[in-house]
């Protein structure tokens, strides 16, 4: 059953005096109950913007976001009553209030979700000692903070958990641990999980489906095994070939010509065509606005 449904979503960043950046330019995606969807893409392709829009932290300029049959409204000055969507942010150093104890921050989540248990119980569930509840964030490592942030989000008993690169600032050994932890906790409670990362190899371990984003567009969506073993889109293929030696930023390998284009001034037609080894005439002219692989090589047969 569909829990979250994003339809043709457009999100823009407006900075006075600079051109509007269309960070998300018409994206569709669904997350079902109990499903883990991995969203991958290079730095700057609009993953965080998409995640924030889903939480209502950034208003949509077009399209729709439906959660549990209701449209998600942007967070204004009013108190949020929809606490069914929770997010774990990228930076563990700014995701916890430095002046409050871990336990108090988890208690906020418990109050929101009305769930049973104590902060110490939740700490235990995310694999931390119970007495960490009395600690302040500066007494915790990055990985421990991230676990506290996960505990706080889970305490609210969300039906959709969003992780915006929750593991990218952790060291390699903690990465897959925290990713698996998030998956297990979300799925066990019957929630959906939208897990954002630029690291396909970690996403593969936990996701049921993988969605690949490039410059504000969804280029390929499919079951994890399919995307991993038989990627259709040349961009997905390039991402996969980068995995043996991914640099810390998840940048593409050098074989791929050119840089990521400016999202404020995207190329015509397929946004990937200038860097694509298989580019054809049609690619620079018409946008491939179909799925599951938005690529003219895989255009559905014309009726």
């Amino acid at each position, binding site marked *: 059953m569909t829990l979250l449904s994003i339809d043709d979503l457009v999100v823009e960043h407006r900075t006075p005096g600079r051109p509007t950046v269309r960070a998300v330019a018409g994206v569709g995606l669904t997350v079902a109950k109990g499903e883990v969807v991995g969203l991958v893409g290079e730095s700057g392709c609009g993953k965080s913007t998409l995640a924030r829009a889903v939480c209502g932290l950034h208003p949509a300029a077009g399209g729709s976001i439906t959660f549990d049959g209701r449209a998600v409204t942007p967070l204004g000055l009013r108190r949020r009553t929809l606490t069914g969507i929770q*997010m774990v942010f990228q930076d563990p150093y700014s995701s916890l209030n430095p002046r409050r104890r871990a336990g108090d921050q988890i208690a906020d989540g418990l109050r929101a979700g009305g769930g049973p248990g104590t902060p110490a119980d939740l700490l235990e569930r995310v694999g931390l000692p119970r007495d960490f509840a009395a600690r302040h964030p500066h007494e915790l490592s990055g990985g421990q903070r991230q676990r506290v*942030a996960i505990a706080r989000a889970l305490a*609210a008993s969300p039906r959709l958990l969003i992780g915006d690169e929750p593991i990218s600032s952790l060291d390699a050994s903690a990465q897959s641990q925290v990713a698996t932890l998030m998956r297990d906790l979300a799925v066990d409670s019957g929630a959906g999980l939208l897990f954002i990362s630029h690291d396909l190899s970690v996403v593969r371990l936990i996701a049921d489906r993988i969605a690949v984003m490039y410059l504000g567009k969804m280029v390929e969506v499919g079951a994890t095994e399919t995307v991993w073993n038989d990627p259709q889109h040349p961009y997905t293929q390039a991402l996969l070939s980068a995995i043996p030696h991914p640099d810390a930023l998840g940048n593409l390998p050098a074989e791929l010509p050119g840089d990521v284009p400016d999202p404020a001034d995207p190329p015509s037609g397929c946004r990937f065509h200038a860097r694509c080894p298989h580019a054809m005439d049609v690619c620079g002219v018409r946008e491939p606005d179909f799925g599951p692989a938005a690529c003219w090589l895989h255009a559905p047969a014309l009726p």
Partner: protein
Amino acid sequence: MRRLPQAWRRLPEAWRRPLAVTGGIMALAWVVIALAAPLLAPHDPLAQDLPRLAGPGPGHWFGTDQLGRDILSRVVYGARVSLPLTLLLVALSVLIGGLLGAIAGYFGRWADEAIMRLADLVFAFPTIILAMVVAAALGPSLGNAVLAVLVVAWASYARVSRGLVLAVRGQEYVLSGRLLGFSTWRSLRVDVLPNVTGPILVLATLDMGTALLLLSGLSFLGLGAKPPSAEWGAMVASGVEVFDSWWVATFPGLAILTVVLAFNFLGDTLRDALDPRTARAIKERAL
């Protein structure tokens, strides 16, 4: 006694510098003087029973003024007037300016426009001139002088607190709180304000000197404390009338100077003890 050097070494580096120690000792000394004034003052500060305009000497170490009052006693009792009022003044400025700035930064839009235009208005005038105008309009009294300085002093706190709140507002823990259903007031109270108080307290310490200077400045101009009271600014003003008797103006002036210096040293130390980012935010404040 052997414990002392240990405690000393445990102090943060910034607090062990000569200026920090000097500032700390001076401020502490003034607090003690204010508290123990009746014990320390050799005379009644208001009694006019000594020879007039006697120079410093035994019995009246700071000399006497034109009414035969002991200047040392008046300087000592003056601490009971100036220090609490300065403290009250700064506390009120922090409270009013800090809160208004926080509201401007957090809610933005028209609240921001209204509050910050008001602050700009204050900044458009030289501080002492605006304070004079307000004090003159309210009528000369020490209470009105405090009000007048308050009118000009809140604005710099509003600016600093707005900037700090703007930076904190977008932090992910603030967003997380909102997603958990915090009302805007709870978010402001729990997540935002506690994380901006540190730098604002530094600014407050730095401003104690300025506030005292303004307050005694108004008294000096006859817009503050009324004649018999032992207020340093008013004492300097009366000393200007008898310029040949240098001691009448010099000693209350030195009192003001040492308090201002003490709080500037302390404020600088506090600022250096903070992390560089907040230190920069404070330096950029407009005063």
